[in-house]
């Protein structure tokens, strides 16, 4: 049974003049431990897919099962709990809270969890260590470099030990060298068993993925998992 299963997902955006179809009967199954790259040109529906996967935006039609939980069958508050327990977000522009230190930013997802404060802190320090930031715990985001901010964001996504990490263009605002470091970090996490779904339009990231899905006009244009089959059929 796939860990993440999107069933016939449709998403329409109604505007005054017309109706934009962002996702069109999208069907996708992701196994546990997979590092999935979602690629495609702008407007292909990548970001919409990620918001829907993240339980942040209702699809117009269709169902999403994560670990056999019907995400949009949950109430809004239960969905918040689901995000906390199942998902780690790494946002495009890091989205760190400016008035919290690196350590506090990492502890954010634990803030609403019932757990001794000392344990929360210890966990956050441990995760910051994993992303190589043990020496920067007390710094505010504006005192950190872009790469360091990204690492804090990754640490924050990891601190809750979520089964699934959703990353949106995590290398979008980083230079090439830093991008590689970050992608290496993701790969390392994946090798430790972490399931990751990453949206990117950077082709250089492709080699890191176990599987790459390319979207076009809200539907799957190509899927590396199915490619051999397609080649076989063609052959």
């Amino acid at each position, binding site marked *: 049974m796939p860990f993440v299963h999107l069933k016939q997902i449709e998403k329409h955006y109604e505007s005054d003049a017309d109706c934009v179809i962002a996702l069109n009967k999208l069907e996708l199954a992701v196994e546990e431990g997979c590092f999935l790259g979602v690629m495609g040109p702008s407007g292909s529906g990548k970001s919409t897919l990620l918001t829907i996967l993240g339980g942040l935006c209702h699809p117009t039609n269709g169902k999403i099962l994560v670990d056999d939980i019907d995400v949009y069958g949950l109430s809004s508050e239960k969905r918040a709990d689901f995000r906390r327990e199942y998902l780690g977000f790494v946002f495009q522009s890091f*989205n760190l809270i400016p008035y919290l230190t690196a350590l506090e930013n990492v502890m954010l997802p634990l803030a609403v969890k019932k757990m001794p404060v000392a344990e*929360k802190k210890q966990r956050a320090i441990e995760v910051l260590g994993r992303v190589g930031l043990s020496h920067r715990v007390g710094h505010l985001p504006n005192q950190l470099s872009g790469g360091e901010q990204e690492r804090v964001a990754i640490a924050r996504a990891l601190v809750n030990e979520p089964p699934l990490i959703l990353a949106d263009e995590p290398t979008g605002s980083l230079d090439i060298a830093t991008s590689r470091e970050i992608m290496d970090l993701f790969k390392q996490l994946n090798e430790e068993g972490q399931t990751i779904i990453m949206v990117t339009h950077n082709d250089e990231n492709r080699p890191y993925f176990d599987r790459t899905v390319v979207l076009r006009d809200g539907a799957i244009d190509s899927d590396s998992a199915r490619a051999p089959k397609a080649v076989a059929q063609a052959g």
Partner: protein
Amino acid sequence: MRLETIAFNNLRRRKSRLAFLVAGLLIGVATVVTLISLSTTLTEDVQNKMENYGANILITPQSDNLSLNYGGISLGGISLDPQEIRQADLIKINGIRNYLNIAAVAPKVLGALEVKGQRVMLMGVEPDKEFKLKKWWKVNGRPLEQDYDLVAGAEVAQKLGLTVGDKVEIAGETFTLTGILSSTGSQDDQILIASLPVIQRLLGKEGTVSLVEVAALCGDCPVTDMVNQISEVLPGTNVSAIQQVVKTRMHALDQFRNFSFAVAAVVLFIGALVVFVTMMGSVNERTREIGIFRALGFRRSHIMRLILFESTVVSLIAGFLGFFVGMGMTHLILPLMTDNEVSLHWDPLLGGGAVCLALLVGASASFYPALKASRLDPTEALRAL
């Protein structure tokens, strides 16, 4: 790290925003504290001043006759009832329920005696009480101090040709005229005043008094209650309230209080508005942040708690500071509003009230912004995603 830590750090690390929020509420609370403490202190001051307008309760012997005198015009001679009030009974006044509200009890004995060939009204008084009660008396010379001191009303002094320092013989005893009252335009101009025991002896009325004036200082208890209480302990007397005096006092104080409450309410409303607008602005400015919180798995209730906790901290600070600033303002303004030496009261109740008020206004002004924040659509909030 808990929710409170987030709110606390937000306030701590964005000091200018905190200062702005606190200032809005502080101005409101400080104004309310200033107006209330000013009004309380001034009310006391006014009460003290009104004491100068004399007694407001009169105790007279019970009489079956109707009084034949009005406004100083007397029809018929001086008619004194044979009945008098026993001086020893007056101590009972101290036993009434509202005795703390009694500022002064001034007994006096009245009688007519021949002085320098003319019949003159003599009044025996307890000097300290009488002169305290009648602060409008201006004595040329000095008031009564010893037993054989005498103070004369303006008219009687003129008619008898008396000057300060004269020896005056009354019923075979010699008094020294120590002072003459400035003209008051009342019966007081017509009398000679000396100490109570001496006059009682001269008139043969030892142990009795003709009349007792009582000054009752009661900001909020009805004077009629006190009249009833005195009547109960002094049977056989007529106790009446000089209603006019009481009502004028109360009216003046009420108006002052109403005015200050009205001003306080307006200022507080403006303070609440400032908090509301700032909180609303802060929610809009933090839309993205709230989106992140939601994406990280914060419930709506967590967001509400976060915003309300912040406003509680702001309100607490504003409440405490507002109280002290308000008291400081009162301290500065008070000398401009009264000539008397008035001491500032540090009322813990007012302090507690100020903090509660700040909390109430702060919470109600930020409730809607908090609700709005919690209802933000996370995708709206995270456009970048």
